[in-house]
């Protein structure tokens, strides 16, 4: 842990006010091409900012000596590469999570792999970041993989990026070279929705401008990496976002208690406010915000609470509770941009499910319209997509579900695409357009419901296991029908 925390005594004092919550913890993604030195940079940050314990230090010194990389220097990457295969091959395969704190802030570092084949792991990491450090090697500048990572950071909603120009020691601390790389990146960043880009020249191996200010780069007057990280405000959200709470579960307890449990994904709600179930359009008044620590009068973004309403809306998991005025779209057709994560390419005839905040909706049909070219960062028309691609697509849903646009409300506007066959997460995406009613494309859509599949499912009852089995069989039938060219909708009782 850290020594800095000792300066201030721990007290069982009150928590910060809600608007200060996100100040306390910063989730930080590190990415960039392989060999640009990500693991080394993070190792250096941990080493210099006291995130490394004595036995870990001893183990790293011992292992560095054994591998004799970097001459006599410490191999900081050993702090991050935790899997046996990673240590053997000297590469990062999967994201690593590391934690440290300074007097000002608690940090979560998400170190992501640079190899193109592990881009899906990088996308996983990026989606959890408040902020990204994009690393480039000062000798090579911005590469294809740098552009790909920038595009994925942009896709998953990261708004602030640090361009860390690493290995400055290898180019004689050249300001001209650094400025050229910075200008290069600013030029491609025009393709993205980043709110702030901060370039910092560093040398992870020597520690220059990581925690300690570099003596060799007097021309650089901006903050060191740690100075910036301690001060940056990652929030770029509007103050007056509409209230949303996707329902995770319905909790029932003694005394006729019935509450909707979930995490508030945006906005705030007060006892006495009207809320609406976006799918049915039914409204109710919020009577209680129940927690084990006592009832509250208000709940805001990030709070995990249980809402008790004055009338029973008869809703379940998958519903989204919303404020009255600005509601989600009850959509059955969406357009989205996604990153394909599965080794199996997109197959228009495969069965997919759309996993949104808490809902799981069968996909009736899906088509790819364009792919992002990582050289030009422009979209080009396409119909296929495969692993590590960023694609634009159109998805028809088997039934309507409550959604927002990602650029407005990220946590009710994102999704993962799930294989109906083996449950695998095949893609992660953001909703760019959503509409109601478009999927009811006419009378020639075959609806697969309990009545139509009565013979096939004669052995099934109403238990949760049987409902799941019904859904599985319906998906299988839908796959066969779709491959024969019949448009299909699945109706489950859930």
């Amino acid at each position: 842990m850290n020594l800095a925390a000792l300066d201030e005594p721990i007290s069982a004092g009150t928590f910060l006010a809600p608007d200060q919550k996100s100040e306390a913890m910063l989730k930080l993604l590190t990415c960039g091409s392989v060999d640009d030195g990500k693991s080394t940079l993070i190792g250096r940050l941990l080493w210099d900012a006291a995130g490394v314990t004595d036995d870990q230090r001893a183990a790293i010194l011992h292992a560095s000596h054994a591998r004799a990389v970097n001459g006599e220097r410490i191999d900081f990457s050993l702090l991050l590469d935790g899997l046996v295969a990673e240590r053997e091959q000297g590469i990062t395969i999967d994201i690593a999570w590391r934690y440290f704190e300074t007097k000002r802030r608690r940090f979560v570092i998400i170190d992501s792999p640079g190899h193109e084949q592990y881009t899906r792991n990088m996308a996983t990491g990026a989606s959890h970041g408040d902020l990204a450090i994009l690393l480039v090697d000062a000798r090579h500048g911005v590469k294809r993989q740098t552009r790909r990572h920038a595009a994925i950071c942009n896709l998953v909603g990261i708004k602030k990026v640090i361009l860390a120009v690493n290995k400055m020691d290898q180019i004689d601390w050249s300001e001209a070279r650094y400025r050229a790389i910075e200008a290069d990146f600013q030029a491609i960043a025009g393709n993205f929705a980043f709110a702030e880009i901060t370039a910092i020249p560093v040398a992870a191996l020597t520690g220059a401008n990581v925690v300690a200010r570099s003596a060799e780069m007097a021309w650089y007057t901006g903050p060191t990496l740690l100075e910036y990280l301690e001060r940056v405000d990652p929030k770029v959200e509007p103050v007056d976002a509409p209230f949303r709470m996707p329902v995770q579960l319905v909790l029932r307890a003694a005394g006729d208690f019935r509450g909707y449990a979930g995490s508030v994904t945006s906005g705030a709600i007060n006892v006495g406010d009207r809320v609406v179930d976006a799918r049915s359009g039914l409204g109710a008044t919020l009577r209680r915000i129940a927690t084990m620590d006592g009832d509250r009068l208000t709940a805001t973004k990030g709070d995990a609470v249980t809402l008790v309403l004055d009338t029973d809306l008869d809703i379940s998991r998958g519903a989204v509770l919303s404020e009255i005025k600005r509601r989600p779209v009850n959509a059955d057709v969406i357009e989205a941009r996604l990153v394909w994560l599965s080794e199996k390419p997109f197959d228009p005839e495969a069965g997919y499910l759309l996993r949104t905040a808490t809902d799981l909706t069968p996909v009736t049909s899906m088509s790819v319209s364009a792919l992002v070219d990582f050289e030009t960062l422009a979209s080009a028309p396409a119909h296929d997509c495969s692993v590590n691609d960023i694609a634009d697509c159109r998805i028809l849903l088997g039934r309507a579900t409550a959604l927002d646009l990602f650029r407005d409300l990220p946590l009710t506007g994102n999704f993962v695409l799930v294989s109906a066959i083996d449950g695998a997460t095949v893609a992660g995406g953001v909703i760019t357009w959503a509409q109601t009613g478009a999927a009811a494309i006419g009378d020639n859509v075959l609806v697969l419901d309990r009545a139509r599949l009565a013979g096939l499912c004669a052995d099934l009852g109403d238990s949760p296991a049987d409902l799941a089995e019904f859904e599985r069989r319906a998906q299988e039938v839908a796959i066969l029908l779709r491959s024969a060219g019949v448009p299909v909708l699945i109706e489950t009782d859930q």
Partner: protein
Amino acid sequence: MTALTSHLKLLEAESIHIFREAAAQFRSPVLLYSIGKDSTVLLHLARKAFWPAKPPFPLLHVDTTWKFHDMIAFRDRTVKELGLDLIVHTNHDGLARGINPFDHPPSVYTDVMKTQALRQALDTGGFDAAFGGARRDEEASRAKERVFSFRAAGHRWDPRLQRPEMWQLLNGRLGKGETVRAFPLSNWTEADVWRYIMLEKLEVVPLYFADLRPVVERGGQLLLVDDERMRLLPGEQPQMRKVRFRTLGCYPLTAAIESDAADLDAVVQETLSARVSERAGRLIDHDQAGAMEMKKREGYF
């Protein structure tokens, strides 16, 4: 200090979210309760997640029969006070074969009495998901693990085939034969756990606090003589030293540290200033390089 404690509220909400997602998506979850400080926090968060209802799953303790006596007493009291269902499982086949921490190397003992025992208990109970208190800050291979960690048939973990986990979305749809280990405390650190115990005034096993206890020094580690089964080497004589534990497991395999930290305040201060990582006291992790990853591949937590 507010900046360093307010993040606990974020962590708490994140953990509750994970508990609820798992309970909603899995047919038959179970909470692995190992009695230590992490389990204490895990159980507390589970109660918060489903309050005013009780957690909709039982607790499971894999008892090697070599746990500290104070741990078992604490377990039984906690379960009784909170009115929870507890399943205790021991690998009786291993017991019958005489597997014990003195005659067998830690890797063999752990495999039989912990890993195999856990697999038996999960298979017998038909559980498709197990909550665990593992934290990513504990050890290098844990730092790589997902919140929903999928295990193939036979409970094997393949670190190269982890399911992508994006944003707050947890996909719990199982493939054939798959089960899940769910880790609500993934983003907590040891310091967070102690601070939270302090803020929430949670009771923990007394072994975490310094007291005079009979110990022997062996290979630079202090081992507690918890009962008459402790085998003393020639010349070893138990002596009373003021010690406490940072982590709790099987007493012959868990080293104590010398300390004067006799209450929660002192323990938190000592933890925040510790220069050695927590698992340094776990003898089973030092057995071989990549020891934890190997255990996990075999189905250990």
